[in-house]
């Protein structure tokens, strides 16, 4: 594990976010372990898996209807970037509804490639600047579960997910 990976995991740990590391070929098993059913997800790009089979095998319904999303407990998505020193994940909004799947659920499972973990926020923002200038897209820099302290004490799970699990896909496997 590189230093960046170790920092990333330590940051996630501090946020109360659990992590598993897996080979690309084992994503299905990692997902199976991480999701609470019913689970929905946004179809991953090919870069993550050859097929969407691991998702469906793990019981994750891809491209769900809004009603199915409303019923789901878990939302599975990918992150384009991780930020090691903060434990943040860059969730890019798509016309396939990734924003809905990552937000309107109680448990968020995120897949991120080891190679996409930036060492620090400075590097991450630099990457985002280039991306947003090219795509004019929208991203969420998400760090840990949603939270509030407005009701007199810190509570996880305000309007968004109350828990997050990260699956790091190792390189060269």
């Amino acid at each position: 594990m590189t230093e960046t990976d170790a920092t990333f995991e330590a940051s996630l740990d501090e946020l109360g976010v659990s992590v598993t590391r897996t080979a690309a070929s084992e994503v299905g098993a990692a997902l199976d372990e991480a999701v609470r059913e019913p689970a929905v997800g946004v179809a991953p790009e090919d870069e993550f898996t050859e097929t969407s089979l691991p998702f469906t095998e793990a019981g994750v319904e891809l491209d769900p209807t809004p009603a199915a999303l409303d019923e789901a407990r878990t939302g599975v998505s990918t992150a384009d970037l991780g930020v090691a020193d903060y434990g943040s994940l860059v969730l890019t909004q798509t016309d396939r509804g990734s924003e809905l799947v990552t937000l309107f659920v109680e448990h968020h499972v995120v897949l991120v490639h080891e190679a996409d973990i930036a060492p620090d926020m400075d590097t991450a923002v630099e990457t985002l600047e280039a991306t947003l200038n090219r795509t004019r897209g929208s991203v969420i820099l998400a760090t840990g579960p949603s939270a509030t302290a407005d009701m007199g004490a810190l509570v996880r799970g305000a309007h968004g997910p109350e828990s997050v699990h990260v699956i790091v896909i190792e390189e060269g496997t």
Partner: protein
Amino acid sequence: MASADELRELMRTEGAAVAQNTQGFNEGRYRSVADLSDYEELKSEARAIKEDAIERLPDLLDQLTDAVEENGGTVYIADDAADANDYIREVVADRDADRLVKSKSMTSEEIEVNDALEADGVDVVETDLGEWVLQVADEAPSHIVAPAIHKSRESIAELFNEVFDPDQPLETAEELTRFARGKLGEQIVDAEVGLTGANFVTADTGTMALVTSEGNARKTVAATDTHIAVAGVEKVIPTVGDLHPFVELIGRSGTGQDITSYVSLLTPPVDTPVVDFEDDETPLSEHDTDRDFHLVLIDNGRLAMREDEHLKETLYCIRCSACSNSCANFQSVGGHAFGGETYSGGIATGWEAGIEGLDVAAEFNDLCTGCSRCVNACPVGIDIPWINTVVRDRVNREDDRPAEWLVDGLTPDEEDKGAPLQKRFFGNFETVAKLGSATAPLSNWLADAGPSRWAMARFLDIDPRRELPTFERETFVDWAERRDSTVDDPDRRAVVYPDLYTNHVQVERGKATVKALEALGVDVTVPSVASSGRAPLSQGMVATAEDHAERVTEALAPHVADGRDVVVIEPSDHAMFQREYEKLLDEATFTELAENSYEVFEYVYGLVENGTDTDALPTVEDGRLAYHSHCQQRTLGLEAHTVAVLELCGYDVTTSDVECCGMAGSFGYKSDYYELSMDVGDRLRDQLEADGVEDRQVVASGTSCLEQIDALLERQPRHPIELLAE
């Protein structure tokens, strides 16, 4: 201006919750920024970006407008609140919307858009849990980041149980949150329009940054098809890359979180499909993304602030709340007293003066004592006390000049239009002190005598519960003049600045300073020099302070030219020389004095560091001290020097960490503020009476702090320099 009764009532009803929350945020800030190895660099970077952006604002607004329009959105620049509200009402009417959901936005509070929309029959729902609590309770925010900071969990539970009458009464924070989430969740997915603020907007791509934790801003945007964002025109920064220092600083500076859960970087209209959650047939990817976006940028006085030499800095503010949380007075009373129409805390004086007018700023501006603890806390380095001083000066000049008979002879000041009587009395305290010493002990008897105290209470609003300073017949300068130096072959030569209090009241600490420095081989002279101008400056009497600054530098300049160092005992005066004189003098004059003057323990520390024989320092076997450093001294980073020297002398030193003692010069003497001053002081008392501290000898550097501690404790505090001259 809040009266003593109003402040007392606020402290009774809201004080405990406000104190607990703000102090928690403040401690969190110290912890969180300590993790940043490049904290100071990030602050400088953030400051530079804001300076540049405000400088180029008109161009950036054009560039931003082009970008948003290219993206398919609309930009509207509103002159004022009414203009903005008219536009927003039209958008909502065009959409034929019954409900608008909002995420937290101070700018939307500023324009009071809720009232405007509700008058049109639109259901407006606040979705930030804190804002929603206030909407249900029909109360105003008391803090710019955590609006319901003044409400305890118990009071929220009581409110919800009464208003909503749930099957099971709600009690824990968890239950309250879940209940609110459920209620609001239904309303969000049913709404047509989502209204958000924006923490930053980048001119290059039309991207807006929203800094949140709950996820309600994300839902507000995702679940509606029409997005209105309202933001002050000052929120524009040049590029997405410029967001970097702010992303690292904003959460840490405010609530002490390294980063909030969600920093949304939205380039609306967003790509997320618009869905009906009851649809059980159409997959997400087959819904269209037909969305409208309106960016409403609000001037409302900001462009005029940009042209105002002193208020301009306010526009750099990123609304993080660090100035509120680090403020001792705010920690006691919160934003319901320390705030205007919309904004609260130290920087609110700038916002309210610029947006609403001087009269609104005048309502709470006196609560800034100039302690300067917010200066280092501000992530964009705004000199918040200076903005408060300038506004106070303007308020003074707007007020009618009151009857002057009582203090006429005591007010040889430069204020052509006159500050209020009480401010002029405290502002001209040098004259009072001179007269006090000249006529002591008679002056002391008179001051304590019934009729005088009555007159002071009646005409100057000096609280009768305060002990008044006792003037010494022989001033520090007179004493020094009558003795010869004990140093034959000096290593260094210094001027000890005879500040107002050392000269007339606490003469002993002056004598101790001379003796301690002479023992270390320093030739000392104590010339007669005007008072620093701290007293008039704290009353907003800038012209008078400027006159003092000129007289002080004129008197000290020949000594400095002659190779003498300037040693300052009173930290608030040392801070004048180091900070405020920059605003009052030309650069060369300021620099000459600033570079050659030292706080007394900074000077002793420097002597020791530069090889002065420490045998001259008196040592003790097992002295145990509790040291309270002065607020302005800590802002200058000069607490450590005193501690280091005392430790060299063999003392075991523990330090207080309250932001201010609460006395703050004349503040604690004023009838309106006496109880607030004591409430702030209670936090220091608690620390000085804590286990392991309660039996320590107390030392403090500031005159005000010494007076306050004297009032708080049985133990008599001393200035630490007196320990070096024993």
